[in-house]
């Protein structure tokens, strides 16, 4: 299936050019950048979740020598344009979540900036706020409608099929909580003003052109140049939020006439920035006695936070993935994103799909028990095959590998034998005091690139520049924030050109130098940007061939020769956003995770022992980085499923620092094995599918399934903390075979 010659760099795992600098500490991140005359910014934030602003007075801060910016000082509209226009740069009349920015200050030192921020007087008349999607309120205290977005995908007649008395109906409600990205480097940005009132903005960001668009909306066309600093992680958290932070440093630079830098403290970052949308998903399925899915009815509610931001597209992806990689003739999926008085929830690796697939995967386990089946059999019976039809009417291609992922994983892990063994042994663990072993699996899919016609609208341009020294420079807005973008895109270009990898360079993402090849999101960098780069590489190779391979002849005295290509989706496909019919995604990756745990009989603490990740990535351009994405993404999802808890107290995140919001450490990481399957798509270079987000879908349901196999506790909520498992045990959420946890001490928990 290899589409490239043995000499091709595709499928090799060359070192990352950015690696040595990052490992040795030589790489200069945003906070390391020293700029003469720089001032430091600080943000005055709301202490309440909802309220009417009575007064904002910066005089005391100005008296300290700081500049102060409030909503009244904005040169343009007080809005960060994402999808709708409801996200204010600074709160004006009302605050709608804790930590919402109300005023900005800048001063020559960080210390003075902090003191000045503390000196700004803010008076707010607090109002009762809304924190739960289950709250019946139809509007926020500000009067804004709580329905931020809604959508529906349907095929066949689900309610009719569920009404058939011969059908076994299984119903469940599942939830997931807020999740924090925990990029190692907090959000940060620097704005450098010039005399014409223009700015250069440098940020720890994923999407330079998003920031560019947001700042031009505020300051006018031609006013801004945006550059990406080396960025220490993003996971979606630096997709839309940097529009806000970059606008803030630009406003302060304009007000002070100095370069202004802001790097958030961790707790400020956690309180003030986006989280993964919490979800509450009701699933009803109808089955034939052998487990075959006859109907699926899903109602998904996402908590969007206070503003619309990206919720409509997160919801869309959530709905389109909700039924999982399972064939069914009768499907109805409804989704709503509801507003609450928290910081807007936003992009996070997986983008809605992990939430709904968590529900579907936990539900498949529940349905299997209701039907007297095991987790493998029910999935094997229903997993997508080539030629199956999705709820949007999309006919799946020959690369559809759900069933193969499941089979490879189950065989490699000896899943069924071990799952059955643990099921039978559970009763014997009662009182023995040994950790209870369990194994669980999840099957999932993830659409590559933008949803629907997004890529057609974007028509991402990419450029390659042939330079006088014979080097070829990649000019794209795709950013590397840890994924290895630089080396992978260079491999694709080197393959197209048939040249040495070392000849290909990666230009710093800088809106003055690179075209808008789209945001670095949606697992689209290799598949979409890489496809266009492959085409550009071929164009350049043809030019070179015409010149007999002589660079000087081709350049003919010019500094460089630039070729441009665009990503062109398959013209025969279409997606109707009104009816949710058509090609939702150009390609789908599939994955199966098998997770093994031990649960402590005294503390109900879960130790994740081993994990197996089988994923169809289409074509592994860089197998080491591919496996890295799968391992890291799965571990992040296992954290979401076990310990990453975030609770609200009066609208403030209780777990707002890294001593209380805990993610898995290296010591918590299981022994991991990754098996890459390669069923080439018709989309990406050499058939590559998206890989960055796929693993975010599988870890949480697999680990909680393993906990269920170990303990008999049927938990439908992520994270399944030890405290949650105890509450489930007390509430009788136990599978029919009973729990392995002896009841001693339960009476102490009221």
């Amino acid at each position, binding site marked *: 299936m290899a589409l490239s010659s043995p000499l091709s760099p595709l499928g090799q795992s060359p070192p990352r050019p950015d690696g040595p600098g990052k490992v040795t500490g030589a790489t200069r991140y945003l906070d390391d950048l020293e700029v003469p005359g720089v001032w430091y910014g600080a943000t005055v934030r709301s202490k309440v979740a909802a309220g009417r602003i009575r007064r904002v007075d910066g005089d005391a801060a100005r008296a300290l020598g700081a500049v102060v910016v409030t909503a009244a000082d904005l040169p343009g509209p007080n809005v960060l344009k994402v999808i709708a226009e409801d996200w204010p740069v600074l709160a004006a009349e009302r605050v709608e979540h804790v930590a919402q920015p109300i005023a900005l200050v800048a001063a020559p030192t960080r*210390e003075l900036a902090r003191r000045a921020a503390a000196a700004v007087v803010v008076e707010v008349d607090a109002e009762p706020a809304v924190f739960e999607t289950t709250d019946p309120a139809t509007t926020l205290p500000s009067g804004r409608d709580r329905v931020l977005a809604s959508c529906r995908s349907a095929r066949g007649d689900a309610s009719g099929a569920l009404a058939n008395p011969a059908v076994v109906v299984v119903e469940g409600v599942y939830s997931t909580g807020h999740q924090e990205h925990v990029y190692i480097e907090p959000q940060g940005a620097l704005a450098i003003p010039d005399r014409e009132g223009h700015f250069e903005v440098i940020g720890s960001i994923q999407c330079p052109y998003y920031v560019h668009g947001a700042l031009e909306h505020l300051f006018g066309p031609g006013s801004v140049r945006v550059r990406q600093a080396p960025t220490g992680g993003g996971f979606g958290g630096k997709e839309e939020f940097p529009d806000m932070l970059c606008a803030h440093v630009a406003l302060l630079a304009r007000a002070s006439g100095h370069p202004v830098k802001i790097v958030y403290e961790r707790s400020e970052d956690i309180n003030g920035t986006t989280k993964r949308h919490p979800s509450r998903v009701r699933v009803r399925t109808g089955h034939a006695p052998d487990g075959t899915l006859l109907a699926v009815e899903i109602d998904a509610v996402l908590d969007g936070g206070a503003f619309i931001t990206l919720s409509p597209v997160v919801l869309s992806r959530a709905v389109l993935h909700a039924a999982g990689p399972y064939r069914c003739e009768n499907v109805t999926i409804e989704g709503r994103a509801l507003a609450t008085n928290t910081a807007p929830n936003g992009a996070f690796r997986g983008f809605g799909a992990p939430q709904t697939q968590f529900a579907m995967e936990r539900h498949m386990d529940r349905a299997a028990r209701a039907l007297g089946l095991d987790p493998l059999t029910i999935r094997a019976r229903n997993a997508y095959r080539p030629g199956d039809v999705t709820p949007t009417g999309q006919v799946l291609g020959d690369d559809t590998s759900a069933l193969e992922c499941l089979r490879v994983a189950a065989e490699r892990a000896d899943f069924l034998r071990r799952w059955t063994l643990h099921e039978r042994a559970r009763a014997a663990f009662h009182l023995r005091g040994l950790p209870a072993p369990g194994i669980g699996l999840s099957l999932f899919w993830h659409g590559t690139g933008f949803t629907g016609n997004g890529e057609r609208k974007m028509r991402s341009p990419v450029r390659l520049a042939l330079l006088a020294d014979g080097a070829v420079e990649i000019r794209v807005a795709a950013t590397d924030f840890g994924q290895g973008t630089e080396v992978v895109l260079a491999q694709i270009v080197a393959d197209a050109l048939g040249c040495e990898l070392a000849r290909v360079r990666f230009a710093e993402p800088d809106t003055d130098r690179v075209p808008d090849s789209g945001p670095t999101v949606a697992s689209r960098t290799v598949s979409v940007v890489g496809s266009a780069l492959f085409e550009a590489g071929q164009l350049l190779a043809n030019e070179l061939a015409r010149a007999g391979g002589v660079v000087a002849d081709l350049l003919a005295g010019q500094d460089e020769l630039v070729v441009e290509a665009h990503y062109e989706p398959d013209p025969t496909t279409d997606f109707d956003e009104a009816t949710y019919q058509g090609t939702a995604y150009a390609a789908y990756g599939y994955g199966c995770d098998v997770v093994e745990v031990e649960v402590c009989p*005294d503390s109900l*603490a879960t130790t994740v022992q081993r994990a197996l990740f089988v994923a169809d990535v289409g074509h592994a351009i860089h197998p080491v980085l591919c496996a890295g994405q799968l391992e890291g993404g799965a571990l992040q999802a296992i954290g979401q499923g076990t310990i990453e808890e975030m609770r609200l107290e009066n609208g403030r995140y209780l777990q707002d620092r890294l001593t209380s919001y*805990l993610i898995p*450490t290296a010591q918590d990481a299981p022994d991991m094995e990754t098996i890459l399957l390669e069923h080439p798509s018709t989309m990406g270079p050499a058939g590559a599918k998206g890989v960055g987000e796929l693993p975010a879908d599988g870890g949480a349901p697999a680990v909680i399934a393993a906990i269920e196999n170990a303990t008999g506790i049927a938990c439908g909520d992520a994270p399944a903390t030890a*405290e949650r498992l105890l*509450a489930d045990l007390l509430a009788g959420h136990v599978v029919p075979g009973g729990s392995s946890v002896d009841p*001693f*001490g339960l009476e102490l*928990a009221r």
Partner: protein
Amino acid sequence: MTVALRPTSLSEALDALGANGAVAVAGCTDLMVVDHAPARAHATVVDLSRLPELRGVREDSGGLWIGAATTFAELRESKLVRERFPIVAEMAGTIGALQIQNRATVGGNIANASPAGDSLPVWMALDAEVEIAGRSGSRRVPYDEMHRAYRETALAPGELIVGLRLPAADEALEQRFRKVGTRAAQAISKVVVALAARVHGDELHGLRIAAGSVAPTPVRLRAAEALVEGQPLTPDLAAAAGLAAAREVTPIDDVRSTADYRRFVLARTVRRMLLACQGGEA
């Protein structure tokens, strides 16, 4: 602005600590976090890391003397500690990350007096004595009397912890330690329990059980101890002691866990530790 003083002897340090608002520091692992908030910064810090009087781990009439400026890394690695008091080494290896263990000190953990401090129940269970120095002389305080209320110790203003004395441990001294945190490393305790006792046949004598994160201070579990002391230890008795332990503590719901969970885990952990003393499965 913060003034940092670096005395080189105990008497200099005690003089320095007489200043208003002065706070003693060694590893700074707690103070640096607290003082990051400018409003809470201390005016004067007195660095104890150069005081020879506070350093070292040595034999002391059959027991051990542990200097207050001993780091948890030193405890973790000390041959004497590992041989005589394995739960001290075990505890030291669960505190923070390795970087924290390299800096954080025995005295600092005690003086910081967090109810979740992992070392505190261990000193309590091992019947340690705290050696305290002040400008008016030194005194010894039994560890049981060290923690008076939430984050309040027996230290008077200007006093310093010099070291700890652990009474002799022989091979019959059973020692158990269990920390329950949210993850495998770098976690703050949700429940932490230490136990020490001498085994005579099927009985435990001189039983001391202490727990952290279940009350405003680390606490002895005296009701549980009283049930078991000198009695034939049966599974039923271990269970009764576990329940008694859970009933004599006052845990709360907080950012890390719930009161219900803490009681549940404490009962089960105490039961398990007692059974383990009898060679049961731990």
